């Protein structure tokens, strides 16, 4: 070997060795795998080298690789839902990292008034629903999606129309005659209704229930506060979401009425001369006639619904944005009924500099609603004759006779189908809410925030009736087409300024202190313009009327410039927590409202709440393996309610409207100035609700079982009561601050994670709430209230009783006691009379409040006090229409890795309902022939006065006397009893008017299968191939079954009553529907 070669080789090796040393000193490649607690690899975990911009994201197998990592650096491993880990890089190059579940549930943030708080620091009673739970329910109105999900929050969709009112009551509600709706806040801005918000835009909904949470809203918070937070942008790559769904809907059922043959046999009871439906011997021909089922004609079609939404959100550290568009389109089950809504929402948040942040958001919605808004929506003088009300009892066949000698030649001449086809209604609602806020944080912990928002609403309603629908119009001029156009412009603004200060270690070690003071002003007002035109050419159609309004006679245009509803408020809150275990919250708010006169304007509403996190105590540490959370909460506070029309302060005059009856000097209508029918009261002031709440939040087995129990006692005093005044005063009512009510109740909710494995998981949630209201003070003595669903009929008069010590919703009536038989009555030669016994005393009582004819088969009421007559003293309590127990429960879970499902039930127990539809179709009302009755009165069931052989009226003078002459009196009675053997219910032909009875009031408890949903998420591998991050397809069934003993269509209904003091009547309700929806959600 050469020496030169050796030197060269040695040099090269040395050089190589040195190079190796140098590269080692510069950094090495670090690799590893990140898995979760069960050993499953986590995808998308961020692994960063601390202090540098180097890092990596784990792949499908949870593996990552970072080159050039210097020795001594630290890896920061973070992923949402897991606790962040920091790992020092020493000699290791490969790491197997296991991330632990973050105890996230307690750090969840909840929105409270004017701020947010983490759940662990809450002292009040707040229930929350998140976006996922809402997205599962395919309804237009997001309030409906909340049904049964929050304990103590009772949500009733009053009927099935697309824009039906959804009544929300938090813990019963204190008012008797006023609206008990809670306050709705969307992104800090109070709104009058949340029906126009797209569920896809909602991040979460929080409901504040007790005064310590609602006191910060002062005068409007007495009935609870529902806070909706919409989705905001977040830092990171822009995320695009797209969703679409399509579904079909059908009505849930109908009221059973008599078939054509049964119907003509019933009409035979009313009229035996054979002119209307044929001679008695020929009536069986009707068995082959199908007849028209008007409920089917009006509500039987298959509706459909479509929903689309698309949203983009993303941002950088400085600027975050969220833009979304959604559309809801529905063709509802009733003819001419439909709903279309478009929502556009834009949210922008940007840091102007180190201290200033600017938030801008705008919510725009445009809605078009076609068709009637509900069963009571009618222009007739009485809603008892509305199209929906008549659709149950209208005759299924046409009469043979030409001679129409109807008692009222009104709307009743035309079939419901003709009337609905002649009715046009279109509502358009354009709404826009714009908010801007500026936050200034000069030093850490001190925040100034100023918010300003402005809202516009333009609501137009166009209604046109063709000739067939105007036979009984409230405007008069019946028989010719009419049009009624209304426009409402509503505006509102709000300015709020708050200062928040956070400080730690203020008074003692380990304490947290947060104080907020603020000021707010709001104002809202509306202007109305109403135009009425009547007397169009009789054959004009809806389109012709709309196109040429000039063809009609214009009645005076009405305008109304509304009173501004202004409030000015000052408020403050202190939160103090010591050792993370002892929490204190105190708030106070002073509100001034323009609805009250000087001296009564201002109200002050303080509250205080305490909480103790028992699970954090040292003596509880040994239980920490099974007890993860135990918190005791106590709160006491006051809130106010000013939901009253501002015009009751003074006596004022305004022009009569086109539907008010006026005098016609020289045959032309005279204009008149009229006062309201409410006596003014300048001493009106706030209603105040005092709430006391005690609650326990618990969590077991590392939050596998979580939940809370709350017990509360609310008292509402200075109730704004609508007092009925004596008729001689010339006024019907006056509002006064008298009276006091209270609500006591208990709520329980729990979430149980039954299983949470790799491939499958199952969660069970349950809530139940019991509430009992009471009228503590009711000055002026007990009163009877009438729901008047039947117009002026006795059946809907004075059936609700309000008294001190009683409660809202108490229904009183007579007890149905069967029928009069030949044991009770005897024929006396000219008519039927009550039998007398040996001493000459009558064996039973007379008809009393039932009007009609007294004969075998007549309706008999119970003489409760045995005084021999049926009168108001025989009224007994039939039930209460407010359900005391409400709640819901459900299961949700996932299986087979990619499938997920949800099943949710909601229920209400213990209340009754007045079945007005059944009652209205159960007697010969007002002696009006040619109306149907319900199918409880088939020939097999009802007592009959028709002789099956000849078709004559067995109970009248001719037949009776002839039969008795031929066969004797006892044979006559035997014959009647023979015809009617086995019959169970009274003969409706004998009753022309009747009061409310126990037969009409039914149990309304129900269990509803509200939502069944099953979804499939495409495996990541497939969706990524399509350049989509997440694809989920799903199918949902909504309102599929309702288990109930109620004989009507749906027990969850509340419409057609005249005042809030008469809740719980089912009459002429737009039927509800069930729907089946399929859809897809894609995230790009």
């Amino acid at each position, binding site marked *: 070997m050469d020496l030169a070669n050796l030197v060269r080789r040695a040099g090269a090796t040395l050089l190589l060795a040195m190079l190796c040393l140098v590269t080692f000193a510069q950094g090495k490649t670090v690799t590893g795998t990140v898995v979760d607690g069960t050993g499953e690899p986590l995808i998308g975990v961020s692994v960063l080298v601390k202090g540098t911009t180097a890092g990596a994201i784990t792949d499908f197998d949870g593996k990552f690789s970072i080159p050039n990592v210097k020795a001594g650096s630290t890896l920061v491993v973070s992923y949402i839902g897991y606790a962040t880990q920091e790992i020092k890089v020493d000699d290791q190059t490969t790491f197997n990292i296991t991330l632990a579940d973050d105890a996230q549930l307690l750090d969840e943030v909840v929105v409270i008034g004017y701020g947010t708080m983490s759940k662990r620091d809450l002292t009040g009673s707040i229930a929350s629903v998140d976006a996922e739970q809402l997205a599962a329910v395919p309804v237009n109105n997001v309030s409906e999606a909340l049904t049964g999900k929050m304990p103590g929050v009772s949500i009733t969709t009053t009927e099935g129309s697309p824009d039906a009112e959804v009544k929300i009551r938090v813990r019963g509600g204190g008012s008797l005659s006023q609206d008990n709706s809670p306050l709705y806040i969307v992104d800090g801005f109070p709104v009058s209704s949340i029906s126009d918000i797209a569920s896809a835009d909602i991040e979460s909904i929080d409901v504040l229930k007790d005064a310590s949470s609602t006191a910060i809203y002062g005068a409007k918070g007495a009935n609870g506060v529902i806070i909706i937070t919409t989705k905001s942008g977040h830092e990171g790559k822009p995320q695009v979401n797209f969703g679409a769904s399509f579904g079909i809907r059908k009505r849930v059922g109908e009221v059973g009425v008599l078939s054509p043959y049964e119907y003509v046999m019933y009409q035979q009871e009313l009229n035996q001369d054979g002119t209307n439906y044929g001679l008695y011997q020929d009536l069986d021909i009707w068995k082959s006639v199908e007849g028209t089922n008007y409920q089917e004609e009006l509500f039987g079609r298959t509706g459909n619904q479509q929903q689309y939404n698309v949203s983009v959100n993303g941002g950088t550290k400085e600027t975050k944005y969220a833009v979304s568009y959604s559309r809801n389109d529905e063709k509802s089950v009733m003819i001419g009924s439909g709903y279309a809504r478009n929502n556009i929402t834009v949210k922008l948040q940007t840091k102007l500099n180190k201290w200033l942040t600017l938030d801008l958001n705008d919510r725009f919605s445009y809605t078009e609603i076609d068709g009637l808004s509900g069963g009571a929506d009618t222009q007739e003088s009485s809603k008892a004759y509305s199209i929906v009300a008549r659709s149950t009892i209208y005759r299924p066949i046409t009469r043979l006779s030409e001679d129409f000698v109807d008692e009222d030649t009104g709307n009743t001449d035309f079939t419901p189908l003709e009337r609905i086809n002649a009715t046009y209604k279109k509502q358009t609602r354009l709404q826009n809410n714009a908010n801007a806020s500026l936050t*200034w944080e000069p030093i850490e912990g001190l925040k100034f925030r*100023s918010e300003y928002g402005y809202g516009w609403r333009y609501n137009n309603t166009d209604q046109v009736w063709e000739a067939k629908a105007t036979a009984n119009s409230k405007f008069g001029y019946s028989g010719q087409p009419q049009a009624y156009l209304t426009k409402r412009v509503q505006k509102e603004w709000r300015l709020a300024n708050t200062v928040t200060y956070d400080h730690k270690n203020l008074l003692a070690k380990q304490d947290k202190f947060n104080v907020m003071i603020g*000021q707010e002003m709001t104002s809202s007002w509306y202007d109305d313009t109403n135009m009425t035109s009547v007397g169009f050419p009789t054959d004009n159609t809806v389109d012709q009327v709309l196109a040429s309004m000039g063809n009609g006679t214009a009645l005076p245009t009405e305008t109304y410039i509304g009173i501004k509803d202004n409030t000015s408020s000052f408020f403050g809150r202190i939160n103090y927590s010591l050792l993370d275990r002892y929490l204190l919250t105190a708030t106070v708010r002073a509100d001034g409202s323009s609805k009250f006169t000087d001296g009564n304007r201002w109200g002050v509403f303080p509250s205080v709440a305490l909480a103790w996190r028992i699970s954090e105590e040292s003596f509880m540490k040994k239980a920490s393996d099974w007890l993860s959370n135990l918190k005791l909460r106590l709160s006491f506070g006051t809130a106010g309610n000013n939901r009253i029309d501002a015009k009751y302060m003074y006596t004022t005059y305004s022009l009569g409207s086109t539907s008010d009856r006026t005098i016609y000097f020289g045959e032309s209508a005279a204009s*008149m100035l009229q006062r309201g029918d409410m006596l003014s009261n300048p001493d009106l002031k706030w209603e105040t609700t005092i709430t006391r709440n005690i609650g326990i939040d618990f969590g077991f087995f590392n939050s596998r079982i979580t939940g809370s129990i709350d017990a509360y006692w609310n008292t509402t005093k200075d109730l704004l009561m609508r007092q009925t005044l004596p*008729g001689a005063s010339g*006024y019907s009512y006056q509002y006064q601050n008298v009276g006091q009510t209270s609500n006591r109740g208990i709520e329980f909710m729990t979430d149980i994670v039954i299983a949470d494995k790799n491939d499958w998981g199952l969660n069970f949630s349950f809530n139940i709430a019991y509430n009992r209201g009471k009228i503590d003070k009711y000055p002026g003595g007990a009163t009877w209230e009438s729901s008047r669903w039947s117009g002026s009929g*006795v059946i809907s008069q004075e059936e609700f009783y309000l008294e001190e010590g009683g409660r809202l919703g108490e229904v009183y009536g007579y007890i149905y006691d069967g029928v009069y038989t030949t044991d009770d009555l005897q024929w006396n030669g000219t008519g039927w009379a009550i039998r007398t016994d040996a001493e000459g005393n009558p064996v039973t009582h007379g008809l009393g409040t039932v009007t009609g004819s007294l004969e075998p088969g007549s309706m008999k009421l119970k003489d409760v006090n045995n005084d021999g007559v049926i009168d108001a003293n025989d009224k007994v309590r039939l039930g209460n229409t407010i359900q005391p127990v409400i709640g819901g429960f459900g299961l949700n879970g996932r299986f087979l890795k990619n499938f997920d499902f949800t099943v949710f039930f909601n229920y209400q127990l213990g209340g009754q309902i007045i079945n007005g539809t059944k009652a209205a179709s159960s007697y010969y009302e007002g002696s009006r022939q040619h109306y149907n009755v319900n199918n409880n009165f088939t020939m097999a069931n009802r007592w009959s006065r028709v002789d099956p052989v000849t078709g004559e009226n067995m109970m009248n003078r001719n037949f009776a006397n002839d039969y008795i002459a031929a066969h004797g009196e006892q044979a006559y009675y035997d014959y009647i009893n023979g015809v009617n053997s086995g019959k169970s219910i009274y003969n409706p032909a004998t009753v022309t*008017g009747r009061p409310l009875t126990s037969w009409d009031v039914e149990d309304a408890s129900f269990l509803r299968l509200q939502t069944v949903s099953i979804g499939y998420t495409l495996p990541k591998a497939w969706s990524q191939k399509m350049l989509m991050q997440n694809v989920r397809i799903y199918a949902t069934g909504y309102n599929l079954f309702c288990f109930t003993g109620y004989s009507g269509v749906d027990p969850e209904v509340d419409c057609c009553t005249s005042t809030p003091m008469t809740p719980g009547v089912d009459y002429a309700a737009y039927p509800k529907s069930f729907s089946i929806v399929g859809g897809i959600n894609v995230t790009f």
Partner: protein
Amino acid sequence: MKNIYKTWALAGLAFATTLTSCSDFLDQTSPSEMFPETVYNTEGYTQQALNKVYAGLVLDHTYGCRIPLNFSTNSDIELVDALTQETTTADSERGLCSYNAPNWNRLANNWSEMFEIIENANLVIEGIRGSEIRENENMRYYLGEALTLRAMVYFDLIKHYGDVPMKMESTKSDGSNLYLEKTDRDVIMDSLLVDLQEAAELLPWVGEAGYTSEHCTKGFAYGLAARIALAEAGYAIRETPKEGYVNLSEKREGQLGYSDPTYPTMRPGDEKRRELYELALNCLDAIITSGRHQLNPSYEDEWYRINQLTLDQTYYENIFEVAHAELFR
């Protein structure tokens, strides 16, 4: 630094807006709702308020149906079919004919709507009496009309219900005159006679100042006064025996002289009766001697005009008629 000034300015603006007119902010009214001061100091608005009093007369529960039709059954020219016992005992308008409808629920509507008319009339009367333009000719006419209408409605209340609450002033919001006791009908009728005398002074004759027989006129005020005076002077079934009054049984015999022991049929004493008859005579003389109202010589013509909805502008045989609409039922 600039930023801090900007934000201070913004906060200051925000704060300043809160201080501006805080008291005005909470004092709000609507221009579409007028206060009584505005209404009764303007002739046009006062007339519209008076039209509301007239409008109460056309309602179903007052002179639209109840009083002329339903309350008048069981007379020699009108009765309800009595072939079936349902009708006469019916808890409906039909049962009224036999005074046998104890549970008929619409009677309360008649009561309350009649008092609504009276309340509206009270408001107009008080408004005009307190108005700055009360001496205007038109305002005097309006006052006369309101007084006459109130008297007419009260008289019908007395005829149908007997002793009723006497409410000659508008309802106070503090409730002080909400719950009134019955007042003896003669006291009320005396007060009505005073009102009508005043009204007769204020009102024009029919045909003057554009007043047709659809409005209250001098003739009607005198005529109504005469009727009330004659009614007061006559027999009525009283709630309790009254001193100084004459019992029917003293003046007639047998069946014709029947007077219930608890609810006696009585008339005012002779002195008072004379007064009332003289008043009636004076009122009726005033109408006859004025020559304003005459009988139409042709009954056919009168009937024809009524059916043509044309007012009689020649003879004014009808002294007063309620102007119902043709198109309302």
